[in-house]
């Protein structure tokens, strides 16, 4: 039996494109940060790839942002209501204990409310705080001389670098957890399948 239709087509397409962009950014980012790890042959190409994927991520973010803004998705899926806050301990308890005993997930995703409260907080932090921060700092890095006054106002190159890299680490933390948690559906592939077909099992 098909479950609820929770991921509309544009969001599914955006998700996989964005996933590819983020993974490429992380791979190139690792080589830029740790040049002794040679993933691509030329460091220069790595720098350029990172730059262009960075621009792509900015566009991808803008698409996501305006899509949700126009379709009212922020209110439906991201707004943290009082009952959501109250439901956090129960959700956490499920991930830490209930899941091992095959208990039912306290949150059932629907087309009008697809995220559980912990997802809401995490996704909102990633998409509304860290993505804009990393994209903005990345754009400043794209032409340091051109944005020199901005960079100086922020406290210089090293501060900019620190902000960008710390946000990048948060992306990596998030990605690892996100990838693992995508296997915590009814079956281990349920969530992944729903991101392809749109229907949750």
């Amino acid at each position: 039996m098909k479950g609820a239709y929770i991921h509309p087509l544009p969001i599914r397409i955006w998700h996989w494109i964005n996933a590819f962009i983020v993974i490429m950014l992380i791979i190139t980012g690792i080589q830029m940060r740790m040049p002794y790890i040679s993933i691509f042959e030329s460091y220069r190409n790595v720098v350029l790839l990172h730059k262009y994927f960075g621009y792509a991520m900015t566009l991808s973010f803008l698409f996501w942002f305006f899509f949700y803004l126009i379709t009212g998705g922020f209110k439906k899926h991201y707004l943290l209501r009082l009952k959501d806050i109250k439901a956090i301990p129960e959700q956490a308890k499920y991930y830490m204990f209930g899941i091992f005993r095959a208990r039912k997930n306290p949150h059932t995703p629907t087309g009008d409310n697809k995220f559980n409260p912990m997802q809401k907080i995490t996704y909102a932090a990633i998409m509304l705080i860290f993505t804009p921060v990393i994209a903005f700092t990345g754009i400043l890095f794209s032409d340091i001389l051109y944005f020199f006054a901005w960079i100086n106002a922020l406290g210089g190159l090293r501060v900019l670098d620190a902000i960008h890299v710390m946000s990048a680490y948060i992306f990596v933390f998030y990605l690892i957890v996100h990838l693992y948690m995508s296997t915590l559906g009814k079956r281990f592939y349920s969530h992944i399948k729903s991101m392809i077909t749109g229907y949750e099992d």
Partner: protein
Amino acid sequence: MIYKTLKKAICLCVIIATFIFYYDFLCYSAIPDDDCLGCHEKFTGFNHGKANCNRCHNDITSLPHDERLKKPVCSTCHKTVEEDCKKGIHNFKKIKCMDCHNTHFLNKDKKTCIQCHNDVTHRKLPAKEKHLKAIECLGCHGIAETGHINIQIDTGKKDIVKFKEIDRDGNNLIDYIEWDNLLSLINKELKEKAELKKYYEIKTKNPHTVNKRPASCNACHGEDGLFKHARLAVKGKKTMEIKVDPKIFIHELPSIEDYKKTIHGKKGVTCSDCHLSDRPVGDKVCIRCHEDIYNVYKKTVHAKEGATKCTDCHNPHKIKTYKELSTTDRVMVCARCHKDYIEKHKWLPHTVLHFKYLECSSCHSPESKKGMLFNFAEKDEKGTKALFYMDFEKIFGSKTDIAYLIDANSDNIISIDELISFVNNLRRKHDKEVVITSSIVVTEVHHDYSEKNLKSKVCSACHLIDAPFYKYMYIAIPQKDGKLFIPVKGTVLSAIPTSIFIDLCIIGETKINHEDIKAFLSADLKEKPRVLRELGFKLIDFMGITIIFFILAGIFVHILLRITVKK
């Protein structure tokens, strides 16, 4: 009573006004011009401003006049001109006004300098043709007040240049580096060498004071030269204008006083040691002292192809110790010939930015020793300006040993704490914000620059923890005669607060290695916070990777529990 006074005053005014109105007529028009021209036909249509015949020939009171008349005196009207002339060589040579000016027809037969001085050789003038073509006689032989250079480049109907892109630092002034970049860009787009028109405009105080001895070279080529402004106009579809640094076109020459301050001067090299004859100084002269360097150099492409001799790169009159040259100065040495260096390095991401902090020999002379150099500077809205000895003298007085102030524990190496406390001290005493700027420089030069087309184009030569310059870091302290370089502790780079150390971020300095961790673990409990502080930005990667391990461990435990508990 009041009416009477007023009446008198008005009458007086009317009389004075009438007198002034007829003054010309009364004084000078005793004889009308037409009466004069009746006999002196050849002066018909004469032109000397508003003056008529009788104004100069003022000893004629009635016609017919005496046969012998007094010679008109120009200074009756042109008093200041006469004074100006007296100051110059023309008065000494008894040159009269009429020798240059046709007094009856001012616009006719006006003499130019060359009409009398057509045999001047200017034998001693260096770059004679260039100078004589560019500058008019009075530029050197008059009393010059201001100089201005107008440069024009015609790019046809193309709009090639965007000054926003060329003027990378946004100061609305094209400097050395930007100029070379601009030229190579235009030449590339036009596919030929762009025609450059330069006009050197000199405003003289007056054209009548002419000196035999020309202005000294230093008048233009000195530190405070005449040409203070230059403006470039690029003509494409639209004409765009921007200010240019005039020193690009008028190179600074040293004076003997300056020479005494150079390393040659200090070591007692006299003029005649190098200038054995009036012929230009060749490499042989330099070899007499610098044989070791020449032995390396003679095997290189530069020497083999006869492209450059020593003096092409090193100005022997201005020679500073290599350490004293800034990165830009060092790049400029090469850029005099390799003008298209920015274009050639387009493959390098952030090309212009790299050249702000790197010199050519960092890559093209692999055997040179590289180091990192820190300088004190003051910061304002416009950017940073290096602090000189004068500034330090003003702050601390001339008797204070600044090196001793920085290196508080006198161990001949500067630690992070010593640096921070010195900068804070400076900030308290100086009214501007003091910061530390940095660049990567060659500290010991190996004269083989043959390395070109670096096929590998390895970025990791610098962007890695074991990049050579991290081992040799110095802080430059301006002294009365030169600079003092004190080594800086290697850990400093990742730990100086961002407000002090502002503009350099390579990647290697933020890498933590096992030595750092070992140092942290082996430190006493009291010392631990200090060691942690010294790690500075290195902590980001350390914390990041540690957290990743914890997350992975957490996931691993979660998977294990999912498998085991369910069973």
